[in-house]
């Protein structure tokens, strides 16, 4: 039996090829998508980590602590019987040079011991119980005992007695629970904790951990205005004092040394501080430190540009970790200076009775993970970074805490990767369904020939069991061979599109798993698609075989109105998604640990709409075809049209099956082309929103020149069509609403030039158009645009009068009244967001400030080449005389975007397009092959009747063209509908709502190539006709 099936496959190569090619292409597409995801996941890890400034921060909980600890011991025999007693002794030891204030000792006996009332003592003196409870753990909160101030070099001793409530076999195994805290070290430290590690010790220990590329100590403290002086000048604003060495600067290159260098015992000044104090290397500055009467004088050894030093200025506040809170006036001293001069000063300030430090120093070890050793898959990389984090946490537990930014980011990226995989599997699923369809289609074409052979076999004694087994073997052969070939084809095409290096960067097990999934799913679906109709065919007798004209029965899907049902399901899924808020803008960013969330039903909707839409198209086409006019008697009509119109009208099924195949394939191709175009447009729109326009020019901190708004005119270089100045600083204002007030980010813009320059769109505004908002801001200088979240938080609305403290924290600070003229959701040019937008002219007048923070520029040509030309002109023009930083839409990488945006969607669409074209050609090929198989006698009869070959060619071509054109038309319509649903899937990936963007060139290419395939197939068919034996064919019964 097996041998017979094998011979049948080998001796009918065209038939075998027709059955295999569809399966191979469909499985090729599906497994290609799986391989593609594996290959591109490496870029997801990279994309997720690129904007990350700090991998891990191990922050000391007691930066001022030192020599202050709690020792606890339990005195008792080795074991205790029930009721047995033990004495617990706690020693508060302060070996430091400063007193410890408001020291709180907390302790409870370890279970099963309990406190014996009235036994607590302090330095031998009895302590009163509190409501019958131990003074060391009293009240509902089990609060400890405040022993007041512990002077330096002194020890206090506390004791109490505990009773065993049940037998204790080993007293030594009991876990003691004492903790100690003080005003200086507010985080409770456990008793008997190892001696507090210094920053240097901690750094050394962490640096030894495998996978850690660098561990650098960083200390900093914020000093109040007036703390920094040089000569006769004083900085009237807050100053940040850093302590780190050259190694730190080398590991974090965003700290740029503009002049001089690091030197022992000397300081580097930020460019702004250097300029304000007119202090250059070789000079000296004085720092006023709390707790020290005499200012700290340090020589200046260099000037640094810290304006983009994210590791130094990212907020350490857990709910604002991604905020870049830049302080322009900074001083960097060596770690030794910080340790020997700054920390003792703050210790002294803290130890002073009643002294409360508003801003204590922060000491941390910043850890740089060796990213080159991280796995390309975010989930695997996450396991690696978590292992590193665990190792770090094992060092000196309780003395500090770890901020694990890299693991948090990878966690989100890993979740995103899983969502991406799911999303792209859904994009690849049509491949499997098409494989099944093409297998079934080819099977139906071959059915008549096979049924004839089966009848012959039955005449020769084969029973239905034999035929069933043959069907099974044949199905398995087609499904397995097609699936394996498809998986190979998928791998090959991904190598071509993605490149072998990127593909094989993925783990081998992932690639093997993808291959097996592709083969397994492909085998299953195609086997079902081949076997089920085959079984049905076996049940029919050969005498029932009547060819094409017999297929007049209304198919089940039409009787059950499956097309309408599927479309209704897709619509319901969309409505559900809309009502569940899935289509709303993402609430936060990856730094807030929010990964993309995509419900499966939202991704199923396009698939369901695809099938439902095409079935509906078939219903409509059948209705049209069955009503299509044929030349009425007494005319036959023109030869081709008369023949074709009757053929299409009276055997619609053959026609619509081909139409359905082409339509299904084209719909997938069109939807993916639109999906990719929409993805590109959304990415570009996001980039423009982040940058603000095509280019953003920020004067460097190193620039010695002022940059008033009029500097915009100097930026109007060739290639730049418009420039607009912007004033902006984080938390530079306070908005005072009717009931509440809060610090907010304010931007001041020139509405006229901003409208010409910036990437404004109506969708950004809540209650008016972009043009109306700009016009209102122009005409009403006291107008204020407020972001919708701030409006909600501070309960202000359009039309309200509010007060705003402008230039907050500077000597130009002033309170002014504004009038809220509109609300917005997003404003272009502010990656971190802005809360308030005011008129620049009014802002200048109110604050007497003549300084813009950055400038937006619009290029004459918005394309990448035009952008590059404009950037080059800016660098060679104004940038050559005055240091400026230039960001463009090409370089912008927004951290609010999901790491899914790193996925090479274009590559995926190229892959899909390739297979779509091949499958469209295959469908047309199978259709024509089917025509040749089923109608060759008809064609030969027409030739025998005197029809010329070119007329027959025209007849075949006309029918194929009709199938291709109708299939293309329906495919484009259904594909556009699918794309509309697919684009919704993109919503959580971007800041702005992606809109459906058509891809006419790609769709036209698909249409033209499908038409070419139809023409080639028709020509091939007539060539085949020439090789047929008419005499034999015409004699066949």
């Amino acid at each position, binding site marked *: 039996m097996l041998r017979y099936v094998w011979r049948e496959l080998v001796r009918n190569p065209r038939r075998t090829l027709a059955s295999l090619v569809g399966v191979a292409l469909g499985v090729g597409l599906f497994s290609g998508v799986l391989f593609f995801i594996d290959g591109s996941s490496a870029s997801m890890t990279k994309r997720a980590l690129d904007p990350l400034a700090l991998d891990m921060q191990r922050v000391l909980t007691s930066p001022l602590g030192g020599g202050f600890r709690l020792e606890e011991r339990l005195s008792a025999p080795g074991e205790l019987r029930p009721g047995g007693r033990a004495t617990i002794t706690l020693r508060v030891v302060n070996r430091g040079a400063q007193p410890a204030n408001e020291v709180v000792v907390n302790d409870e006996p370890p279970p099963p011991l309990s406190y014996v009332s009235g036994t607590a003592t302090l330095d031998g003196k009895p302590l009163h119980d509190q409501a019958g409870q131990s003074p060391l753990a009293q009240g509902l909160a089990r609060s400890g005992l405040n022993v007041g101030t512990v002077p330096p070099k002194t020890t206090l001793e506390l004791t109490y007695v505990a009773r065993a409530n049940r037998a204790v076999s080993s007293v030594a195994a009991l876990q003691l629970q004492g903790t100690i805290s003080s005003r200086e070290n507010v985080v409770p430290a456990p008793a008997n904790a190892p001696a507090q590690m210094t920053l240097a010790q901690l750094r050394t220990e962490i640096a030894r951990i495998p996978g850690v590329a660098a561990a650098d100590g960083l200390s900093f403290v914020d000093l109040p205005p007036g703390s920094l002086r040089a000569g006769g000048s004083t900085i009237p604003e807050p100053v940040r004092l850093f302590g780190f060495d050259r190694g730190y600067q080398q590991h974090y290159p965003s700290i740029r040394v503009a002049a001089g260098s690091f030197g022992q015992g000397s300081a580097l000044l930020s460019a702004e501080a250097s300029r304000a104090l007119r202090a250059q290397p070789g000079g000296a500055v004085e720092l006023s430190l709390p707790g020290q009467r005499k200012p700290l004088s340090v020589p200046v050894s260099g000037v640094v540009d810290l304006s983009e030093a994210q590791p130094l200025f990212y907020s350490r506040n857990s709910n604002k970790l991604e905020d870049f809170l830049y302080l322009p006036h900074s001083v960097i001293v060596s770690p030794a200076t910080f340790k020997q001069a700054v920390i003792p000063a703050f210790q002294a300030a803290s130890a002073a009775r009643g002294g409360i430090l508003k801003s204590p120093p922060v000491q941390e070890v910043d850890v740089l993970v060796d990213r080159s050793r991280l796995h390309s898959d975010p989930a695997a990389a996450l396991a690696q970074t978590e292992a590193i984090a665990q190792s770090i946490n094992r060092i000196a537990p309780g003395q500090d805490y770890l901020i694990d930014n890299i693991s948090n980011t990878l966690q989100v990226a890993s979740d995103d990767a899983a969502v991406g995989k799911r999303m792209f599997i859904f994009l690849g699923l049509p491949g499997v369904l098409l494989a099944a369809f093409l297998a079934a289609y080819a099977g139906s074409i071959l059915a008549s020939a096979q049924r004839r052979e089966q009848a012959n076999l039955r005449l020769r004694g084969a029973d239905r069991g034999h035929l069933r087994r043959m069907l099974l073997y044949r199905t398995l052969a087609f499904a397995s061979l097609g699936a394996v070939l498809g998986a190979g084809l998928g791998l090959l095409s991904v190598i071509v599109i993605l490149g072998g290096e990127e593909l094989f960067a993925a783990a081998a097990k992932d690639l093997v798993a993808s291959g097996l999934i592709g083969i397994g799913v492909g085998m299953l679906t195609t086997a079902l698609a081949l076997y089920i109709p085959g079984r049905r065919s076996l049940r029919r007798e050969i005498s029932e075989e*009547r*060819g*094409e*004209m*017999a297929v007049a029965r209304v198919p089940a899907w039409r009787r059950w109105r499956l097309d309408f049902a599927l479309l209704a399901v897709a619509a319901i899924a969309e409505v559900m998604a809309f009502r569940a808020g899935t289509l709303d803008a993402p609430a936060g960013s990856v730094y807030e640990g929010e990964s993309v969330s995509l419900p499966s039903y939202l991704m199923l909707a396009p698939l369901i709409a695809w099938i439902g839409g095409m079935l509906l198209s078939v219903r409509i086409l059948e209705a049209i075809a069955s009503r299509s006019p044929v030349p009425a*008697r*007494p*005319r*036959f*009509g*023109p*030869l081709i049209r*008369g*023949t074709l119109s*009757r*053929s299409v009208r*009276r*055997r619609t099924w053959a026609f619509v099956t081909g139409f359905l195949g082409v339509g299904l394939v084209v719909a997938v191709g069109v939807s993916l082309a639109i999906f990719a175009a929409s993805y590109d447009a959304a990415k570009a729109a996001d980039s423009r929103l982040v940058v603000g326009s095509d280019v953003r020019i920020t004067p460097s901190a190193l620039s010695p020149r002022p940059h008033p708004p009029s500097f915009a005119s100097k930026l109007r270089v060739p290639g730049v069509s418009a420039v607009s100045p912007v004033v902006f600083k984080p938390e530079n204002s306070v908005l005072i609403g009717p009931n509440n007030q809060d610090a907010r980010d304010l931007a001041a813009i020139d509405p006229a030039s901003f409208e010409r320059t910036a990437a404004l769109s109506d969708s950004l505004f809540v209650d008016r158009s972009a043009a109306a908002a700009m016009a209102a801001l122009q005409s009403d200088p006291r107008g204020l645009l407020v972001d919708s979240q701030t409006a909600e938080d501070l309960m202000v609305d359009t039309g309200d009068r509010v007060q705003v403290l402008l230039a907050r924290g500077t000597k130009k600070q002033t309170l002014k009244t504004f009038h809220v003229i509109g609300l917005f959701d997003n404003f272009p040019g502010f990656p971190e967001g802005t809360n308030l937008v005011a008129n620049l002219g009014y802002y200048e007048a109110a604050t007497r400030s003549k300084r813009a923070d950055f400038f937006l520029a619009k290029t004459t040509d918005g394309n990448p080449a035009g952008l590059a030309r404009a950037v080059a002109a800016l660098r060679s023009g104004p940038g050559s005389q005055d240091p400026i930083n230039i960001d463009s839409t090409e370089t912008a990488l927004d951290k609010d975007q999901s790491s899914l945006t790193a996925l090479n969607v274009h590559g995926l669409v190229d892959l899909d397009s390739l297979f779509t074209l091949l499958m469209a050609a295959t469908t047309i090929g199978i259709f024509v092959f089917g025509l040749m198989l089923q109608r060759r*006698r*008809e064609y*030969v*009869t*027409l*030739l*025998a*009747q*005197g*029809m*010329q*070959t*070119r007329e027959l060619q025209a007849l075949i071509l006309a029918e194929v063209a009709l199938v291709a054109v109708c299939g293309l038309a329906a495919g484009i319509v259904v594909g556009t509908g699918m794309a509309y649903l697919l684009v919704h899937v993109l919503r959580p990936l971007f800041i702005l709502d992606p809109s459906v963007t058509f891809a006419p060139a790609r769709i036209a290419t698909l249409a033209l190539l499908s038409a070419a395939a139809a023409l080639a197939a028709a020509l091939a068919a007539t060539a085949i006709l020439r090789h047929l*034996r*008419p*005499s*034999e064919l*015409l*004699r*066949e*019964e």
Partner: protein
Amino acid sequence: MNGLAAGISVDSVRKHYATPAGLVRAVDGISLRVEPGTSVAITGPSGCGKSTLLGLISGLETPTAGRVAIGGQDVSALSERQRARLRRQALGLVFQADNLLPFLTALENVGLQLTLHGATNGYERCLEVLAELGLAGEVDKLPDQLSGGQRQRVAVARALIHRPRVILADEPTGSLDADSSGAVIDLLLAAQEKAGTTLVIVTHDLGVADRLDRTLSLRDGKLAEDAARPERPERRRVGA
């Protein structure tokens, strides 16, 4: 050319096929001549080359060697396009299988032949012919809705509608019962008699062969016997 009978001339015609099993000599050097307006039966065992010879005469197949002429026109020297024109204008073909186009009604199947012939309006004549063949009530039926005999009569009508000079019939009664078979042969003979058409019928049925002017027997691709009848046999009327 229509309406005037044409003679057939076959000179040393060979048709050989290369197959995996070796060279097949389907027709191997046959020469014959059929006078205009006469009827000829070609008989012989299965596989002797009867149908291939008919295919060569109709121009559906080209000879490996030799010459076939109809009405003095060398068919084997014609281009494919010219052969097609010859078939649509001068030949009427009937096969064992009716070979009707399944999506056309009986009337349209016949009308298509007229359209191929170049006539833009000939339905009335089609209706007449079909009525003559006893199919007046079946003209709008599809082939699937007709009996085997009715289908074959439609096929004959299709072969006669454009008044061909030569009718070539390959086992036209092979799949019919005796009554239907007799009726079809009657139709062909009546047409031949009425229009003076040259008629060539490939048949196994000696009864059919006996009713024609001449019988040619083939064996192994060669002409084995050529028996002419001195007198024309008695012919039954059409539609009987």
